[in-house]
């Protein structure tokens, strides 16, 4: 753990940018067809529940990251194995994001450039940033959030002005009942992007006002969920269901449809800007968590030193995890969710919380019965004063 503090506002922005990151890029919840936005919103509610689980664990151990408290909960040996699995999981996820991004660039803009080169550039930038530490990352996010926000507003304005939105494309709502929507939610949107918030368990200990963690996290997830849902709704209403299922990058297709006043057209650069910034933050957060997690697990004092070797690993992993884009997407939508996301994002944290709850209850009942374990961080604060 480096000695750093981030503010509540910075955490909010980091979570929002993280959530939007690659979720704006790829078609999410597309199995739910025109009800994709609904699937995202339900996923968001699921995300709230997951965040509460992670927050529950945080409130028991407000000063240490999950790689450390897993050892306190499960015992040293099992806890270390679990922490190691999580670190690997974070590394794998950052490699996935990098691959998503590289494939997008190749398919839409840089047909002749090798994937490796494109990914290398991004990886170098991420390594550079992570070496600077979480405070710098948080400050950068504050500045770039404004840029993304302005871009988003102007894109929305242009879409509305060019009159390509057709609300009728969103109808009929719940054509085949609620079932496909729920299925999409529980096989996809719950984990990607909302469940991935688990990464912030690594970052929460840095927050300077622990009492705000819950509120800020929920707000950020809600905010980003609403944005994602409305972006998806706009995509569907602009492109209609048939086109969107065939489009690898729906937002890009939507932006390409914009035409205002005869000369504002083909604004692909907007899309590059939004996705590069979004993916950059998503990768930074994932990568930072992996670096800090590794450092914490293996007692490396200067975590910045790990940035280069781990970055290299992620770069190579991003090339080798799949032989082509469809394999990559298929893995992402069907294999990963079931075998990685579900256990690591939902089952294990819930179990940990349960064990932590029982353990702390025992401990507390030994000392005094008045202390309510969930409020532990407040007591810690008061002690300091």
């Amino acid at each position: 753990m480096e000695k750093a503090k981030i503010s509540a506002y910075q955490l909010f922005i980091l979570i929002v940018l993280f959530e939007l990151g690659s979720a704006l890029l790829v078609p999410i919840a597309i199995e739910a067809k025109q009800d994709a936005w609904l699937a995202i919103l339900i996923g968001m509610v699921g995300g709230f529940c997951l965040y509460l689980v992670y927050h529950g664990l945080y409130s028991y151990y407000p000063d240490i990251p999950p790689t450390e408290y897993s050892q306190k909960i499960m015992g040293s040996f099992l806890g270390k194995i679990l922490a190691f699995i999580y670190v690997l999981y974070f590394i794998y996820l950052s490699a996935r994001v990098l691959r998503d991004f590289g494939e997008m660039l190749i398919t839409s803009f840089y047909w002749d450039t090798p994937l490796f080169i494109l990914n290398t550039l991004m990886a170098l930038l991420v390594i550079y940033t992570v070496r600077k530490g979480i405070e710098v990352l948080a400050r950068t996010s504050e500045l770039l959030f404004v840029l993304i926000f302005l871009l988003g507003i102007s894109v929305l304005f242009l879409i509305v002005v060019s009159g390509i939105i057709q609300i009728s494309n969103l109808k009929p709502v719940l054509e085949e009942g609620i079932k496909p929507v729920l299925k999409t939610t529980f096989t996809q949107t719950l984990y990607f992007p909302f469940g991935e918030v688990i990464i912030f368990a690594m970052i929460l200990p840095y927050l300077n006002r622990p009492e705000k963690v819950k509120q800020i996290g929920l707000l950020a997830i809600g905010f980003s969920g609403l944005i994602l849902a409305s972006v998806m709704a706009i995509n569907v209403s602009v492109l209609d269901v048939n086109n969107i299922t065939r489009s690898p990058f729906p937002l890009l297709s939507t932006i390409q449809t914009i035409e205002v006043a005869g000369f504002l057209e083909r604004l692909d650069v907007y899309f590059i800007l939004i996705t590069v910034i979004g993916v950059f933050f998503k990768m930074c957060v994932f990568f930072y968590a992996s670096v800090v997690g590794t450092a914490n697990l293996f007692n490396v004092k200067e975590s910045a030193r790990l940035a280069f070797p781990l970055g290299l690993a992620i770069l190579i992993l991003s090339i080798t995890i799949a032989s082509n884009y469809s394999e990559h997407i298929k893995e992402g939508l069907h294999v990963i969710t079931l075998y990685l996301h579900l256990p690591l994002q939902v089952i294990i944290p819930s179990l940990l919380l349960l064990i932590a709850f029982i353990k702390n209850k025992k401990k507390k009942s030994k000392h005094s019965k008045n202390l309510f374990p969930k409020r532990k961080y407040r007591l810690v604060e008061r002690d300091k004063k």
Partner: protein
Amino acid sequence: MFSFLKRKNQKNDRKIQEINNQNQSNNRPPNLIESSLSKNLEVIKQKTGNSSDIIIRPLKIGHNSQIKIAILYVKGMVDNQSVQDFVIDSIMNNQNLSEKLIPQEVLEILIEDVVAVGGIKVVSDWEKLLTALMSGETITLIDGISKGVCASTQGGQRRSVQESTTDVSIRGSKEAFNESIETNTAMVRRIINNTDLWVESINIGKITKTEVSIMYINGIAKNEIIEEVRKRLKGIDIDGILESGYIEQLIEDQTNTTFPTIYHSERPDTVAGNLLEGKIAIFVNGTPFVLLVPALFIDFFQSAEDYYERFDIATAIRFLRTVIFFISLVGPAIYIAATTFHQEMIPTELAIIIAAQRESVPFPAFIEALIMEITFEILREAGIRMPKAMGSTISIVGALVIGQAAIQAGIVSPAMVIVVSLTAIASFATPSYAVAISARLVRFIFMVSAATFGFYGIILVFIMLIVHLCSLRSFGVPYMSPLAPFIREEAGDTIFRRPIWAYKKRPRLISGQNRVSQGEDQKPQPPRTRIMKNTTNVEKGEPNES
């Protein structure tokens, strides 16, 4: 083998000797002035190498002129008038001095009665005496007394207070600092008439012994930052300080960056304004540029005039400056990226025009831009160094020969000339030269990245730039604050400029505990009715009366 050991021993001996010498020099009692005048003069002559600009004027005073004294000063460093009138003349014509006296009495009379200069001190060791002599004071030595009288008669020819040449503004004070540190500190004092304006001086430079002063407002400036400034200044061990740039480079937080983390200004009103925010000014003798710490990135985009204009106009101008800075950074890069990688982005008609222009150009856009940029940098550098009389030659050569001829020769396209000149003008329009020059460097990185990866490259470098800026600190204060970390109550003074009455508090990260800068309800509240009641009697039949 033995010789090796011997050498080693020798080395050790030398080391010990050196250490002893150092100790001696540290513990040695200060080199005291002797009581014999002739010996003293001999020492001075020997120490100054008998320099011809040191004037020694021997005098004899007292009954029968039996007491010898000598007056010493450096030609040109002193104000001749005051040396003549208040030292030499007073001594020679004073009645009290022609009586029967012992040397001790002469000293007392000199100090109390004769020398008619404000700053007077008595020193007894050589180092202080010589430093005083070299800084323009007039020394009086008396035979039989092992002390010297220093009268502050500094003067000589200096540039007068003139209009600023680097921070020009339309509204506001026109005067700028000059090379004399006393004038400079006085100019700020004239603006802030408060006892809490504190000045501390030290001499830096083993050989030049340059006077450096730090100035701050006690109670507003943060104590930790003042302490840090003191510590860093005291840590400087260098031969000479010739300009505040030396100090700047020796005390800045991070050296491997192109961006300045210390602000400098030539205007007393800018310095005063920054002092009021809790910043600390560092004056260096011999330069009109005063350093201000801690400096934030946005400081370099503000000019004193912003605060004199009304807020809406100032905000618009600041917004323009942001755009200007952006253009000066990425102007050519965007052109290169658009013409090389993203032609589809350019509206069709424009794309045809550009393509037609570029038809005869044998270079890729990047090389074309590089040629023009480098040509322009050469022109600019020449324009700065050239004698003023030849200035018009540069503009003719630049505009006609390079602009017109290069296009006609088909080496560059007209569109490129437009882009490059727009970028050049933009970089001149940035208020701070220090940041404009950084942007000039970074622009080339942007151009290379645009030539290799198009917009993707530009965006990556842009993000990297922001990460770099966010990682900088100036005396512990994050460089990009109050934008990042975002501080809501201060963000109104960044690319916006809120109304003066809305500046309720001083910047949190810069000033200390005392943060309230103005009272509540400073917003002007004119009376509702058009005619002011109870003030003047409105004459009947006023033209605007309805």
